């Protein structure tokens, strides 16, 4: 596993990802607790573009970083439906 920053992050999102990565330190996959509420909006925005997962906790939020996917070759072509919704009822 390599811990590269997702390539589609730029500007403030990339900065927030870097900040969280620094907080995670030696264990990039570790959950990082953030209590500074001024950062919550940016963290939410980062989460909305697949840069991290966020869980609300009593003190603030717990953030787990997401990294650039590696298995690009296995990715279906652009535009292919993401979830086969084969089971429907009427």
């Amino acid at each position, binding site marked *: 596993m390599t811990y590269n920053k997702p390539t589609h992050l730029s500007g403030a999102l990339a900065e927030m990802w870097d900040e969280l990565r620094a907080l995670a330190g030696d264990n990039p996959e570790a959950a990082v607790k953030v209590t500074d509420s001024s950062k919550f909006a940016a963290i939410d925005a980062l989460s909305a573009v697949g840069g991290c997962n966020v869980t609300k906790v009593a003190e603030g939020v717990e953030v787990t970083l997401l990294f650039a996917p590696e298995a690009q070759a296995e990715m279906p072509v652009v535009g292919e439906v993401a979830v*086969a919704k084969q*089971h429907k009822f009427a």
Partner: protein
Amino acid sequence: MKLYRAENLLDLETVKKSTIAFLGFGSLGSLTASLLAYPWGRIILIDPEKLEADNVERHLLGYSQVGKPKVQGGREWLIDRGVEAKRVLAIASDASKETDALAQASILVVSIDDPESCYKINQLSVNQGIPAVYGGIYPMGTGGQTVILPRPEEECYLCSEKKMGALDYKGKLPTASYGVDPTTLVNSAGKVTAVPALKYSIGAVASDMAAAVMAILSGTAEPEILIHAQTWEGIINVRQGENLNRLAGFITSLSDLGLTSNIRLTQNGGGYQLNIRKGKLGLRLNRWDVCPAHSSVVSIDQI
């Protein structure tokens, strides 16, 4: 039938000269029909089943109709709303067997669980060139879809099933739990059955279907699969690259503008997945290049 609140909204002339056929009168079909209770030239209701007590929670009809054919109750409901009795034909039968009745229709509104029946109806729709709208609800009511086919001889239901990946699963039983025991998703004949979903989720798709019918009749509809998501629903996969960058920028802009976003990206294998909730997105529908429903159609030019 007199209307008081539809002036300049409903093309009454088109409605009056059209025959609309509702194939399947379950929760989705009945709610869709209720949204289209207008003075059609003819309304055809087709469903083989009788209303059962456990249908009532989500169905248009109530306990007073339990034990009667659903289409009979539907016919009575429409008449009670002012539709002329002579214009409503109720057929308590399997829709795929009622080809003569369906051939008279100007548009088909299909809300049937069984894929095989849908494929048979689709073939008729393709062969006869009858526009169609198909609806379906995802288990647990996480969302649903409306397949809009204004020109089935060009893009049909099988094309949409191919696009949605459903054909790859043909013949297999549900394996995902959806939060419920998967064996409850199929009946003794192996057919997919209704599963938990709240009525408002079903009503949202019914509303889309009704709007699609009117769009087709007004000539403004394009072939598409309209996905209506209640909770987060994966729509399409996106590789890393320019499209992903643009999507990320768009989502960030929504947040910057103080808008609550109903769109997000999640990682999916080697790339990302575009998800939506509390809204809908239309997938453009193109003809499946080897669609078996179209291969039997011979154009004038080929003769």
